[in-house]
């Protein structure tokens, strides 16, 4: 039983002892079940740490994060990366019926994504403007989420991974921290039109 199912079991608390046992019969039958419902859980995706020894990539560079956490793109001679991690999502579905991964629809509604100009990441804000002059941008790219690679993990569980792209300016920002201050929304529909 997966951790998630254990928790669902705990939450629903459906533990029903029943049956009237004779005094000499030291047995008791216990039935337990998992409540109905759907869950979706996603890990954040991380682009890892990119180090640019010379502080200059030569040109604006787009790095791609694949489902295995590898970072590729640009000239690897110009930077090194610690390796990222794709955002792994797990869907569970428990309505008694068998889970059919082909009926899962992963939605990536552009209107819900808070990426783009308002999600510019970076340091060195230009004086008096509050705008980053050398931004790091998480690209608003529908292809960045690979919602089609859904893997069935059992009768009522499936997983998929969210990958992404990161655009770095030619001159790297000063190293001062990591950023996760931007969000994207992933929704999952099962067996709906």
């Amino acid at each position, binding site marked *: 039983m997966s951790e998630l199912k254990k928790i669902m079991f705990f939450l629903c608390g459906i533990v029903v002892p029943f049956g009237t046992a004779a005094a000499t019969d030291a047995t008791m039958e216990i039935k337990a079940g998992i409540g109905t419902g759907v869950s979706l859980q996603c890990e954040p995706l991380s682009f890892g740490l990119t180090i640019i020894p010379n502080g200059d990539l030569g040109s604006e560079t787009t790095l791609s994060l694949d489902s295995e956490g590898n970072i590729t793109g640009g000239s690897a001679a110009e930077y090194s990366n610690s390796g990222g991690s794709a*955002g792994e999502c797990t869907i569970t579905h428990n309505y008694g*019926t068998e889970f059919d991964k082909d009926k899962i629809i992963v939605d990536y509604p552009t209107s819900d994504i808070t990426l783009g100009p308002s999600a510019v990441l970076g340091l060195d804000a230009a004086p008096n403007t509050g705008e980053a002059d050398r931004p790091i941008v998480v690209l608003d790219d529908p292809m960045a989420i690979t919602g089609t690679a859904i893997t069935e993990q059992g009768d009522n569980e499936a997983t998929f991974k969210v990958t992404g792209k990161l655009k770095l300016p030619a001159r790297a920002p000063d*190293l001062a*921290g*990591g950023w996760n201050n931007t969000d994207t929304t992933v*929704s999952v529909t099962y067996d709906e039109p």
Partner: protein
Amino acid sequence: MRGKIRAPSLRKAPAVNDLKSVLALFLVGLFLYQLPAHAAQVFVSDTVVVLSENSRSGSIEVSNMNHRAQEFDVVPISLPDEIMKGDRLLRWGPDRLSVPGNRSGSLRFVYRPIANLPAGEYVSRFNVRSTVSGEDRSVVPGDAGDVDKAGKDGAGAAVGIQVALPVTIYIRHNVDAPLLDISDFIPTLSDPRSHGFYIVGKKSDGVSFVGAFAVDKKGDGYNQAKGRLFIPQTKSTHTIDVPRKGTEGFLLARHCLNLWDSFPAKGSPNQEQCLGD
């Protein structure tokens, strides 16, 4: 502007800056390493609620399976014109739930009939969406330093994923749940994972079917298959598969398909079709 952390400039000797650089790298690496601890999650007890004259209110449970508190937004995606016009055909609440760790919160929906409303089924769609908490947004301390321009420059970035599950509310105003046409059982003798299937179809269009089914071996009360049966407004048919488990012999005779027009199933089935009598 979101997502911007400005570090104070600390001009110090190169050796100190090197130390700062190493410290910053360590902290960024630690931060990124720890990210998976903050997985976003949402759990809903059901994705469909049916309201009618006889059942004017309903609710779903939104559960937080993390140890710490979690907030959820309830976001309308599409609402019937009767709601958009200001007629309060449907009320719901709360718009935002704060659920302690390992607890659940209720999201309630109430149907209030309005005058002169044409008969029909009215559909409202919502997303129940996890919010990203302040803790998720935390980054490494901003005083990591301003490194030597000739030294190691770089960046780390991560994107928090908000997860959302849809919840659909069907208001049936002066219409009943549709009856279903049930096909003969269609065996799939060559499929080791299935005994076969039924095809069920709605007898009337424009109304969803939200109910339950069970396939029983006749007489022994053993459920060969059971679960929720959901045929949305826009679909007319649904296939009910009867899975074959392990080395089971084929289910060729003596079984019944029972249908209820509510989920979970209550009382006697509304429809029954038996084979092998």
